[in-house]
């Protein structure tokens, strides 16, 4: 690798803790995929955007779907167009040349790109274990075969690979063996403060402080199924910030508005409402 080593140190809208920065840099230098786990809404996907932004690299996102096969992520052989062309023959494509009908999908695009890219494989746990196993070889060899044309596509520049997973359970061992791993823990209040500052540079200080305190309190309610995460807090602050009634930061002691932004399951919403009303009474 003659390219000068670039280091990642955060982006304009992403607050990076030093631990994660080190891990990202090590993974990039070792050319190993980085597997990120953590509660939904703690910025796993955002990290890839942030790296792309700060290093000025192109970001290619593969959104994994439950029915996906690995081959769908590599390339597509457009049978239907070819069938159509062979029947009607009214296109400029050469029907006898199968290559005309091979299109690169996300992983293929990342491999064939002239520049080093960032490949985000988002929510890999959605697909079944076969998908992960098939992915192994490709990540290992950095190349794949196009069966139809018997061609081998290998990566021009090894892309930086970020893989995210929401699963509580582990991915298969061989797969893990080829990745570096990090679990993004839920940020502490002080970290959260700087995240809020980055997103709302002009927000009322008191409002931010109260909102964060209330947020952590609501998060700790017993028995909540989907606890609100950073994403929810940001959205909530955005809502509060636009509402003139709360903008001044007076809130919140007795009234917690827009609970629906934080709690999206009806049971959770009820629990949170109960918690808030009870606080008002006593």
């Amino acid at each position, binding site marked *: 690798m003659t390219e000068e080593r670039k280091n990642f140190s955060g982006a304009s809208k992403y607050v990076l803790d030093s631990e994660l920065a080190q891990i990202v*840099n090590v993974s990039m230098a070792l050319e190993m995929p980085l597997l990120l786990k953590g509660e939904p809404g703690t910025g796993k996907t955002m990290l890839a955007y942030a790296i792309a932004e700060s290093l000025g690299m192109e970001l290619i996102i593969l959104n994994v779907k439950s029915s996906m096969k690995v081959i769908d992520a590599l390339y597509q052989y457009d049978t239907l167009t070819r069938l159509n062309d062979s029947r009607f023959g009214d296109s400029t494509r050469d029907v006898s040349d199968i290559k005309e009908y091979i299109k690169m999908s996300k992983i293929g695009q990342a491999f064939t790109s002239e520049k080093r890219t960032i490949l985000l494989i988002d929510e890999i746990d959605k697909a079944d274990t076969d998908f992960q196993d098939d992915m192994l070889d490709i990540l290992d060899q950095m190349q794949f075969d196009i069966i139809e044309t018997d061609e081998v596509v290998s990566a021009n520049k090894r892309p930086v690979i970020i893989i995210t997973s929401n699963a509580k359970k582990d991915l298969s061992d061989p797969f893990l063996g080829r990745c570096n791993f990090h679990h993004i823990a839920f940020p502490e209040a002080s970290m959260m403060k700087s995240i809020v500052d980055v997103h709302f540079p002009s927000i009322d200080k008191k409002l931010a402080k109260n909102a964060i305190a209330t947020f952590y309190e609501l998060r700790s309610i017993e028995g909540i199924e989907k606890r609100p995460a950073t994403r929810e807090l940001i959205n909530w602050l955005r809502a509060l910030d636009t509402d003139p009634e709360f903008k001044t930061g007076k809130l919140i002691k007795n009234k917690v508005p827009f609970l629906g932004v934080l709690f999206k399951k009806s049971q959770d919403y009820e629990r949170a409402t109960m918690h808030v009303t009870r606080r008002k009474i006593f």
Partner: protein
Amino acid sequence: MFINFFYKLREVGIPVSPTSFLTLQKALDKGLINSMDDFYTSARSILVKSERYFDLYDQVFANRFEGIALDDNDGLLIDEMTQEMLKGWLEDPKEMAEMLGEDEEKLSKLTPDELIEYFKKRLEDQDGRHDGGSKWIGTGGRSPVGHSGHHKGGMRVGGVSKNKSAVKVANERRYKDYSRNRPLTTADIGEALKRLRNLVPAGAKDRLDIDGTIYQTIRNGGEIELIFDQHMKDRLKIILLIDNGGWSMDPYISVIQSLFDYSKAQFKDIKTYFFHNTVYDTVWQDPSRFKKPFKIDEFVRLDPDTRLIMIGDASMAPYELMSQDGSIYISSRSGQPSIQRLNFLSETFKHCVWLNPVPERMWPYTRTIQTIKEIFPMFELTINGLEKSIAQLMAK
């Protein structure tokens, strides 16, 4: 390098592969790791592949590298220790003298400054760190001045450094929550139940069947004929039989509640029935086991492909299971022992499991668990057990 560290990690049960250890060496070679903190994070990300082991890793790391980190701040440390010792001396001179193995009188003649010098000298005498033993400073020994020693009034050394070192971070054990032995949560159950599905074609024919289309088109001599197909939909039928009676099930109510909630959300075709301890002639559709009885014999009319999940502690008096009128409710005594009913269920539905909230290591102590285990494949109601039971249910 760090080979002992590697083996220590394996020893405590973290699955660290040699390959990943070599990767770590590569990272060291390339000069990517320049400080203790770097090493802590990089080694964790390279060696440890699940947050469940982070806590263990922290403990091993703290244990392995604590000494090194302490060495870095020797001067500072000794100053602080001396302060502590001085404080201890002022509070209880007798004990301090005893700990140092010196005569109290002799020490009390010293001026405070001399005393501090003396303490420092004693501390510096220590050549390197040692663990155990009953002298000087170390961890876990009976030494008065060490980390978690047994000695009354012993002082705590670990983690006094001013900077937040990697060892300090490791000592904080931030990942305790994620370790393996936490209780089952709804999300976990969801993860496990997702595997439970039976895909069958259903609904309108709106998906283009490419292979079929090509086949038909060629049969037509090149005239394109489009073939459509149905989507695959999940049509799994599930019967949930829950033991909700008696004190013995009380501790498990919340975990069963969440399993129940989740499966209701997850599966469209799910029937739930309740029983107490074991099954006799009837089960009930209402949790109070009163209003809506359902005859066991009726189960025969249901689809035999239905997956049957029994949940209960399977713990009762043996006669409840074996005797002809074993039920503790007179009204439900029928002449057939419960064990026959259970056999009937497991024969009717060949895909069946029994989930038991009682920990597996306790099973051998209850006879009825042993008996029922022979009728139904029994699994512990934990993440691992749930996953195994799903595999059992989906087996052909």
